[in-house]
């Protein structure tokens, strides 16, 4: 059955001025388990649906965590929800982050803006299973310090793994880095040839980062991007999320750079 299942908001954390993280628990039977990188179609009654990537894990195992930025009518409605409110959820859809590709090597996570959200469950899993990898590093770019997601958690993560953060526009009192996210690629430790990179952020930022990483020696097949196009159905039937040969709701959103590079190079593909 491909209709939204009712979920209840059980937690709501304000991340930034326009972004909140919702924790949802099923009202009835839970949907099949979501893996990091996959997304749900989340329905805000009565306005409509938006695709939202999983942004965290819940202790119950049946819950879902989504971080949503209010940019349109549906996301604004979602961002305005309070515990007890209901939403509809369909999923899981799409490809997960390929964590197996990184086994034994370094993990480099590069996030831009709200792109940190889909990477968070991957980071948490990697931190929980340190023996599977050589190392984990996180690089984060944001517009301003106030736009940084999960700020407190970043500090906690930084105690367990190298975390580098930069902003485009500092605010008074900001003592961290200023500049584009690619300038941080030299500030965290990883062995390029033995690294798997996971990028999520604006497409322009991911393209520049992927090129820089490949230039440094990270294999293109191990640079993963989470791509975005219009999605209506999530089930591969509406045709709207096509990127050349890819149906991003099915063959994505996570796509390796060796596939994505040529596609993203063609304008308006």
């Amino acid at each position, binding site marked *: 059955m491909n209709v939204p299942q009712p979920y209840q908001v059980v937690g709501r954390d304000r991340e930034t001025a*326009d972004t909140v993280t919702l924790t949802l628990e099923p009202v009835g039977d839970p949907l099949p388990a979501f893996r990091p990188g996959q997304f749900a179609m989340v329905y805000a009654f009565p306005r409509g649906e938006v695709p939202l990537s999983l942004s965290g894990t819940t202790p119950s195992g049946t819950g879902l965590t989504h971080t949503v930025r209010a*940019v349109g009518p549906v996301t604004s409605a979602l961002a305005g929800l309070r515990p007890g409110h209901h939403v509809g959820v369909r999923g899981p859809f799409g490809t997960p982050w390929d964590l197996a590709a990184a086994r034994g090597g370094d993990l480099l996570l590069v996030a*831009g*803006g*709200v792109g940190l959200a889909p990477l968070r469950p991957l980071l948490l899993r990697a931190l929980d299973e340190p023996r599977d990898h050589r190392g984990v590093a996180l690089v984060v*770019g*944001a*517009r301003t310090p106030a*736009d940084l997601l999960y700020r407190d958690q970043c500090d906690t993560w930084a105690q367990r793994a190298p975390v580098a953060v*930069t902003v*485009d*526009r*500092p605010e*008074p009192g*900001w*003592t*961290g*880095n*200023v*500049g*584009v996210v*690619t*300038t941080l*690629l*030299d*500030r965290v430790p990883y062995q390029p040839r033995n690294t798997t990179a996971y990028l999520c*952020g*604006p497409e*322009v*930022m991911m393209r*520049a980062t992927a*090129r*820089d990483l490949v*230039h*440094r020696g990270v294999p293109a097949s191990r640079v993963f991007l989470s791509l975005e196009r219009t999605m209506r159905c999530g089930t591969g039937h509406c045709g709207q999320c096509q990127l050349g040969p890819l149906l991003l709701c099915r063959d994505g959103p996570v796509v390796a750079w060796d596939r994505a590079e040529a596609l993203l190079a063609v304008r308006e593909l």
Partner: protein
Amino acid sequence: MTTSAGFLTGLTEPQRGQLLALAETVRFPSGARIFDEGELAERFWIAEEGSVALDVHVPGQSPPIVETLGPGDLVGWSWLFPPYRWHLGARTLSPVTARQFDAAAVRDRCARDPDFGHALTCAVGSVIGRRLRGARARLLDLYGPPRGGGR
């Protein structure tokens, strides 16, 4: 796209030796002003430890930071091109250790050794290019609220 793994990687081993021979190691405490906008660019640095902020003087504000630099980064390039004046200011955000160069001596060396001069100019050019790309990327305000849609 060039790697940004340190300014010196743009030079060959011998050239690197030639350049570093002109350097002395200096230390700045945290919060020290290294240079200021408009001053004559008589020296430049390659950061080894610590963090340097490039900033600009705006009346009535604490100087806004344009970009931060870290280990391996070239601090200052205005010394290479006329009018040899800093177009931004630089101050340390932490204690900084850096290699310091006398600009006139390096320019003189470039003039006498065109191969060295060419290599150094390319290395500085590559840094300028990278900073220009970064500046443009930030100009796009990629993480900002979506625009242009309307519907």
